[in-house]
């Protein structure tokens, strides 16, 4: 009878699906899975993809040496990455997938505040740690405890840069321009507060542009007309920064331009060329002057994975390395139990393998978050000159 046979067919199909799902959860042995969750498509794709490429490049380096040793046993590192499209709900289901399906406890990403905040309930319930590249203090301040800031926050770099420029170049007035989304607007608000604290004269702070804008003349016209000494581009995507710089210069802006997020020199040189000379931004371990041979090797691996180097990776190189070493310090049980990991955070320290001088790599954040929830990525303030970043100075977050 056709009807019964159809019911049987469908039931079989459903059973098959169910088996398929169960099978995918079986974990292979002696592998540490690390998740990367971030935006890997759309205009901001480079943020998440750089995270992924960094993690994959680091994992390749480690696996090439037979794996990473924890408690006398070598583990292969496997990177599982998910594109959250900068969409909070995709981020949540992605985090659930990483935690509950893949059995992952340590997640690198996401890249912006909304996605990072959205997964907080999920990672708390699922007992996982995330390393967001987003700056909202709520993520890292108690009662939150499962997120660790992976880079220098804009509100940490901002004041340092403004102070430096105030002291060395005598700036008195400042203007901000931001992209019209939560991430950028928040960073702008933090920047405004920092500038106020330094008694800088804020001449423009309400201008913003939409994601996907290709012509920045309109927004820049209005900012430039306020004629500030320093123009801060808040939370700029690497794609937009050079265009903003170019628009400002073409509109006759003579002051200094800076941003607090990592940029890529190639993108800047392609799009803005010499107009970007003197542009100040924050990088990681990427400038040739300060990087170690291990970093050089990493760059080679990165190029193999991604096809070409991206300066944004300079700040994102740290996450995988520090996660693994902290687990090592906390003992193999920390592979599944993040409370051990959290305990180890407070005392953990290792030499920064990516820099020439032996700076320690550890967890900081007591000042901003009252708890250690930030990787002590060096704050490398750089100035763009003729196609490359030059290091102005290397700072760090105090504690």
């Amino acid at each position, binding site marked *: 009878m056709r009807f019964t046979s159809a019911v049987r067919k469908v039931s079989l199909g459903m059973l098959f699906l169910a088996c398929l799902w169960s099978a995918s959860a079986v974990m292979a042995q002696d592998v540490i899975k690390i998740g990367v969750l971030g935006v890997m498509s759309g205009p901001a794709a480079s943020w998440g993809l750089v995270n992924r490429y960094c993690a994959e490049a680091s994992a390749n380096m480690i696996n090439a040496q037979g794996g990473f040793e924890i408690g006398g046993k070598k583990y292969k590192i496997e990177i599982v990455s998910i594109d959250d499209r900068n969409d909070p709900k995709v981020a949540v289901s992605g985090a659930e997938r990483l935690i509950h399906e893949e059995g992952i406890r340590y997640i690198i990403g996401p890249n912006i505040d909304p996605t990072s905040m959205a997964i907080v309930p999920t990672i708390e319930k699922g007992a996982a740690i995330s390393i967001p590249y987003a700056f909202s203090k709520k993520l890292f301040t108690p009662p939150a405890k499962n997120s660790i800031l992976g880079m220098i926050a804009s509100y940490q770099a901002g004041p340092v840069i403004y102070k430096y420029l105030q002291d060395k170049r005598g700036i008195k007035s400042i203007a901000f321009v931001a992209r019209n989304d939560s991430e950028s607007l928040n960073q702008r608000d933090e920047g405004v507060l920092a500038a106020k604290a330094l008694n800088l004269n804020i001449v423009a702070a309400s201008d913003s542009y939409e994601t*996907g804008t290709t012509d920045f003349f*309109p927004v820049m016209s209005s900012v430039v007309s306020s004629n500030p000494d320093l123009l801060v581009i808040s939370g700029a995507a690497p794609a937009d920064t050079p265009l903003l710089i170019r628009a400002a210069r073409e509109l006759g802006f003579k002051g200094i331009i800076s941003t607090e997020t990592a940029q890529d020199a190639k993108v800047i040189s392609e799009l803005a060329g010499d107009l970007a000379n003197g542009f100040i931004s924050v990088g990681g371990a990427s400038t040739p002057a300060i990087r170690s041979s291990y970093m050089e090797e990493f760059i080679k691996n990165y190029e193999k994975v991604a096809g070409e180097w991206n300066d944004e990776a300079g700040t994102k190189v740290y996450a995988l390395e520090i996660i693994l070493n902290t687990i090592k310090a906390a003992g193999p049980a920390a592979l599944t139990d993040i409370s051990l990991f959290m305990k180890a955070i407070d005392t953990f320290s290792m030499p920064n393998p990516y820099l020439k001088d032996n700076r320690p790599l550890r967890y900081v954040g007591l000042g901003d978050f009252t708890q250690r929830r930030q990787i002590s990525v060096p704050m490398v303030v750089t100035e763009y000159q003729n196609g490359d970043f030059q290091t102005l100075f290397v700072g760090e977050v105090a504690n």
Partner: protein
Amino acid sequence: MGQVLINGLYSGVQYALIALGLTLIFSLMNVMNFAHGQLYVLGGFVTYYVYGVLGLPFVVALLAAGITLAVVGLLFDILFFRKVLARSARDESTMLLATGTALLLDSLFIIFFGEKHRGVPTVISGVMRISNNIFLPYSRVLIIIISVAVIVFFILFMKYTRCGRGLRAMAQDREAAKLMGVNVDRYSMFGWALAAMLAGLAGAMLVSVSGVNSGLGTWLSIKAFIMVMIGGAGVISGAIIGGLMLGILESFGSSFLPGNQYLAIFIALIIFLAIRPRGLLGRQ
């Protein structure tokens, strides 16, 4: 104020190019091409490789972008749209097919062109200073000139050539055109190629000023829809006016309503269309 107007005009002529292509496809086939922004992005990437990476002259890049996109347009029609259109009289199938192709192009871009924003050296450097506080870089002057030239050429083409008249007849009434002996299949193929070419040319010019990245397509498609709706779908003059209007509105919006320019534009658009559903110049 003068600067605001000039900014608007600059965006406006480029937008008009995009809107022309979109409105052409719409009038010929009643398809709202959701992938139009993606075609524009593809034009940008072609130029990036030809002009930026290979270092050939900009004119060559412009031609290459135009030709590549014309071919892509042809393929779109032959592989996808013709088949679906032939079978279905409903709007929704082609609309969703277009969404599918947009997603397809988006994901192909990120696989082939990567995540970085790409730009090329300026074609002409230097800034024209119109008055004390009005600036216009020469690179933008060039774009305005090329865009206007392409638009004029397009209008002349549609008015005075046999092919253009065939296309217009088809846009008026597909069935009647068929009866009059217009080869509808060939002309729709041609229409697709032409429309995609316009988008490609606009993209090629964009990359010389603003650069291009894999994720720009969707937002540009939405903008193109806005322009077409302001002017009236399926009308050439409407597309041009819609493009210019959006450029100017954007420009005024960002100087007088910073941060909320698009909200204002969208609300105005909805109210406007509620009163005048066919746009400024659309057939009522």
